[in-house]
């Protein structure tokens, strides 16, 4: 009994004329509810919605920008790779062309050489045949000439008074003349 009385006394000792810290004031509760609900509604409309929207808008903007930058970077990388590939391809092509032209030149050179050799051979051949022909001609001329001379000599011999000594001398003389020719 005593304990209960003491507890009661303790509980209400503070709430004298000024009121204790644990006193509940219904008016204050009402005002708190009203104030808080009012504040919640006003701030929700005036502040939280626009602010949170702006924040998420900005976040998505930043995210988009980063994504865009990333895609641009990837695109650039792809382009660079493509460029590199193209460049190496062009280089290969150029190399190939040079190689081809070199080959062509080589072939051309060989051809020309061959041709010129052939030509020179032919020219030599021609020259040879020409010489042969000229030789033949000269020989023929000589033959004619010799015949002519022989005829002339015979004629001379026939015209002269022939004695044996004179004949031998004559023949020798003509022969000498012939060999001199």
């Amino acid at each position, binding site marked *: 009994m*005593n*304990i209960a*009385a*003491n507890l009661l*006394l*303790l509980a209400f*000792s*503070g709430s*004298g004329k*000024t*009121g*204790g*810290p*644990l*006193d*509940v*004031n*219904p*008016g*204050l*509760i*009402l*005002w*708190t*509810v009203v*104030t*808080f*609900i*009012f*504040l*919640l509604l*006003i*701030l*929700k409309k*005036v*502040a*939280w*919605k*626009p*602010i*949170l929207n*702006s*924040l998420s*808008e*900005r976040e998505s*903007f930043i995210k988009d920008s980063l994504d865009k930058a990333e895609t641009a970077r990837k695109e650039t990388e792809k382009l660079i790779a493509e460029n590199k590939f193209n460049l190496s391809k062009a280089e290969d092509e150029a190399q190939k062309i040079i190689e081809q032209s070199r080959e062509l030149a080589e072939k051309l050179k060989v051809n020309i050489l061959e041709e010129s050799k052939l030509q020179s051979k032919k020219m030599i051949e021609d020259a040879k045949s020409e010489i042969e022909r000229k030789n033949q001609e000269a020989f023929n001329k000589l033959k004619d000439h010799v015949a002519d001379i022989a005829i002339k000599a015979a004629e001379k011999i026939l015209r002269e008074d022939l004695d044996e000594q004179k004949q031998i001398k004559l023949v020798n003389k003509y022969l000498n003349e012939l060999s001199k020719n």
Partner: protein
Amino acid sequence: MWIYNPNTVTDTVKTAVETDSKQDTGWIMHHVLDARELDFTPFGVIHLPEIHLFGMDISITKHVVFMWIAMAILIFTFSRVARAYRKSLVPKGVTNFAELLIVFVRDEIARPTIGKGFEKFLPYLLTIFFFILTCNFLGLIPFGSTATGNISVTATLATISFVVIQIGGIWKNGFFGYFRGLLPHGIPFWLIPIMFVVELLGLFTKPFALAIRLFANMTAGHIVILALIGLIFILRTYVVVPVSISFALFIFLLEILVALIQAYIFTMLSSLFIGMAVHQEH
């Protein structure tokens, strides 16, 4: 062995009550408790109007006024912040600071504790956070008063949290689903009635703890500061002045920390309980 002596206790309490009325040591309580006037002592006292409605005393008291001041500050500040965002998405000045706290509440409190669907509760959590924060800080300025150091205010805020938690749970899980979800899975059927009562009690202890924690934290600091100052007058010597003042200053700095921490804890726990009510699986 300590023997309980009822007479000693009775005597002590009686003496305390008597000296209280005789010596008027209620000046500490005068600073902490609610009042019907705004006390700007060297400059005068403003008496607040008394209103009675349907037999209920709904007078405007000191704490109501300070809640309204907090409300005015918040509406002013955040409407400006919202307007600043309309101009440019890049924050500066007050907007930057407000954004820091808003993003903190969103990313550190609401998102991890509630998870999916946290956006629905964000306006409530932001409002309760900034309201408690502002009320706490209003108690730290000269002539200010801590509305959150009043059990009526904290109990009401906790009750609103309670309502939000229950509405969140019921909205997500359905009325019967929510109350069925309160019971843990896989308990023996004969435990169900007991567990249901325990869990139901648990629902009410959460906001009760919220209310008491906020009230006690905000009141205790003020009482300690006033008691340290009061030491000078009780001991009637100047020697304790440096000690009292430095200790009071230390407690005051601590109170700045506590004002922030309590606003955070109230919001954090409300958010946690909402998360637990919404996602009952774990």
